């Protein structure tokens, strides 16, 4: 223990300037957070830019400090005095970890407690989650910084290594975008994270126990090669088919979806082609039937296959979507992109189309009624919200994680809550109510510097054809019905659309659907004058 403390004291004496800088940045961050929550801005542009860059600067200052601490007893090279002194490797490593704990983690932990208190959130009940966040910091940021510092001999080399790693990440991301369906499967990402952690840990241990720099660097290069290999060899199509199996008796389709041939987009005049545009977005109209009141369906994935003239085939491969179908929905317009070059070639030619939709079914629990009082509302999950009238949403804050999955429904607009006249000038509402949903999984605390999570709740309502929606204002007295959807299962549904003309499903502006929607009698609230802006 005395050796650990001896090395720690030496590091504290040597690295106090770096420690002070990182603490100062942390202090400014803690000072600035409540200002950000209150939407306060700084008038001086440079200060404002610096404040926006604070999280990145803090992470950089920590990485710098880790590099300085590790390289204080450099593990690279053969001339360091400490190598021939009675340093015990695990005590040296423990001393470095103690310094990281004392100079980075402990202050961050304290600052997070302070921020929780400033946000009026309980501290004791959130301590476990705070520790979990610290562990995530260790595994994701600090282990990586330690590993890089362990195989480099100075800040210059470390910075170069960091740049190379950054370029490699960009490269891997680029490779990933070239591999069809790779962005759709999270499990491959899990493998990458495991490889990353295993690589960093083994490099750190290898360097501290044996100082085998060449071997450690080879481990890093090998891991990167493995990551690329894992990315390239993962059978994404098979995994996706497994993730979204065909419906069966015990897992039936949650609603009946049918392609609506009657609707298409009209193009009033020739659109000036945007020459930089590389992709064209198609929106395909589907009717929804038999959607249970207690169910919520999220269309998560889409694939479009086309039979082109000349017996050619084209597939969009799988793409992600987030079309949430809840109570009252009768239509949905899954969106898919197609290369502009191909679109221009076949847009007016009838082509045979086949669509596959991957869906998740959620079952709604009992709804909790929350009333907005003044400009405030408290959502289940201890989230505190303030009505931001300028943007028609609730600015919400919660401790460590945003409440999810969640579905919020409100009868909007209504007699008490005004809506701007221009917002409803052209079209009438769809039958479905205004909703907000976040169907993400509840996977523990969100990985963030601040323990106070900010999220906005905007209640949106669709217009008649449910192809687009508008965020509606929330007023004092508005009742919000908050439910917690529970995931049941996932299925896929396949649709033969027959022959379609792609140009009919490319929305140009102004959006115009044929046949046009009939005007519905307006509710009284729609006729109120525009509400004054805050």
């Amino acid at each position, binding site marked *: 223990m*005395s*050796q650990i403390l*001896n090395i720690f004291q*030496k590091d504290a*004496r*040597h690295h106090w300037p770096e420690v002070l800088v990182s603490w100062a940045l942390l202090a400014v961050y803690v000072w600035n957070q409540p200002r950000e929550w209150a939407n306060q801005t700084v008038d001086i542009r440079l200060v404002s830019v610096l404040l926006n860059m604070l999280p990145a600067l803090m992470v950089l200052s920590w990485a710098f400090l880790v590099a300085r601490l590790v390289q*204080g007893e450099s593990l690279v*090279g*053969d*001339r*360091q*005095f400490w*190598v*021939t*002194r*009675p*340093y*015990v*490797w695990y005590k040296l490593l423990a001393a470095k970890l103690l310094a990281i704990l004392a100079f980075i983690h402990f202050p961050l932990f304290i600052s997070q407690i302070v921020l929780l208190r400033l946000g009026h959130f309980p501290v004791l009940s959130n301590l476990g989650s705070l520790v979990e966040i610290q562990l995530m910091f260790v595994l994701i940021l600090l282990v990586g910084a330690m590993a890089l510092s362990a195989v480099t001999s100075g800040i210059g080399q470390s910075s170069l290594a960091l740049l190379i790693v950054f370029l490699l990440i960009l490269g891997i991301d680029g490779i990933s975008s070239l591999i069809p369906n790779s962005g759709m499967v999270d499990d491959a990402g899990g493998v990458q994270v495991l490889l990353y952690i295993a690589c960093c840990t083994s490099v750190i241990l290898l360097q501290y126990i044996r100082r085998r720099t060449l071997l450690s660097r080879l481990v890093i290069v090998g891991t990167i090669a493995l990551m690329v290999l894992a990315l390239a060899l993962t059978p994404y199509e098979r995994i996706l088919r497994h993730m979204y199996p065909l419906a069966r008796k015990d897992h039936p389709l949650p609603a009946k979806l049918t392609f609506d041939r009657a609707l298409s987009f009209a193009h009033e005049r020739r659109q000036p082609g945007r020459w930089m545009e590389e992709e064209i977005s198609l929106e395909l109209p589907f009717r929804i039937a038999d959607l249970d009141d207690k169910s919520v369906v999220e269309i998560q994935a889409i694939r479009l296959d086309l039979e082109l003239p000349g017996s050619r085939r084209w597939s969009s491969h799988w793409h992600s979507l987030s079309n949430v179908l809840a109570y009252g929905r009768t239509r949905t317009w899954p969106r898919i992109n197609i290369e502009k070059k191909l679109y221009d070639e076949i847009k007016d030619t009838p082509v045979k189309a086949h669509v596959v939709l991957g869906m998740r079914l959620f079952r709604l629990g009992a709804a909790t009624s929350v009333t907005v009082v003044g400009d405030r509302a408290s959502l289940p999950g201890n989230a505190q919200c303030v009505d931001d009238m300028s943007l028609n949403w609730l600015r919400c804050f919660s401790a460590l994680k945003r409440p999810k999955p969640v579905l919020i429904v409100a009868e909007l607009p209504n007699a008490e809550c005004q809506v701007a006249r221009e917002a409803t000038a052209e079209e009438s509402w769809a039958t479905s109510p205004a909703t907000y949903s976040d169907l993400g999984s509840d996977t523990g605390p969100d990985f963030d510097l601040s323990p106070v999570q900010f999220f906005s709740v905007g209640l949106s309502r669709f217009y008649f054809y449910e192809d687009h929606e508008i965020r509606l204002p929330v007023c004092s007295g508005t009742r919000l019905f908050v439910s917690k959807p529970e995931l049941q299962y996932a299925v896929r549904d396949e649709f033969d659309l027959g022959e379609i003309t792609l140009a009919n499903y490319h929305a140009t502006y102004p959006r115009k659907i044929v046949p046009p929607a009939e005007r519905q009698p307006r509710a009284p609230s729609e006729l109120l004058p525009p509400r004054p802006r805050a």
Partner: protein
Amino acid sequence: MAPSPPLRRVLSGRDTLDTCYSIAVNPIQTEGLGKRFGRVRALEGLNFSVPQGAVHALVGPNGAGKTTLIKILMNIFRASSGSACVLGVDSKKVSGRVFESIGYVSENQQLPGWMRVGAFLAYLRPFYPTWDTELEGQLIRHFDLPLDRKLKQLSRGMRMKAALASALAFRPKLIVLDEPFSGLDPLVRDELGKALMERAAGSTIFVSSHDLAEIEGLATYVAYLDSGSLRFSEDMASLIARFREVELTFDAPTAVPQDLPANWLHASAADCVLRFVDSAFSQDKLEAEIARRFGPICKAEYKPMSLRAVFIATAKNNQRAR
């Protein structure tokens, strides 16, 4: 010499312990030690030992492999073949607590330049259970070390003194010095040499150098390394006794004869005089050989050689052999 209890504790490989322990009568012992850097052979088949209590010099020209050998002994490099034992420990396991008994100073060691001399010594103190603060004080006074100066602000000589003080203050059983006097002025060399002899009494000292003058007064044993191979390793007295500069005077002009014995090095003839270095000097044998080869001669002189002269003669002979 048996490893001390702390050393035993850090030894994990039983076989290695037994092997090293059984042969470890000497603080340093190597067997067939070799090291390659890619295609370059830096050391080859080194068998030598450093006896307990000896001041053992390792000499050889630049690039002979002295630093490589020392770095293998200190477990900074790994041997490619063979083995080495240091204080009864396999050199591959020399780390951590083993260094509580080894004082290592090298000319190119990177010291923590940001530290002040006093803080540096104070920092190292807790690492060594045997640290002698009284000896530390003596060394500071002897070397006139400025305790409040940063190591990076010190001259090369002063830095070496600080390093040597930090390596002697815990009374190590083995002191390993890699070119400790290189680039130092004669005064500092002398001072360091004296301090080493006075303050490290009882320790085994293994010192490498390419300058023989600096170790001639110190060493009791000497090993000569050249191109990664050990040419000889023996105690200084027998080495000096073994080499003689021989001058034979004939009554008529003479030439260098063919088929000279292998131990007659650098034979040259000038007028009536034949000169050579005998590397296995024994007066009776030499005189018998001279008589056999040349019959009666006018005069024979056998001059003792300095270590430097021995070194040069051996080095030249090796160059010629290559």
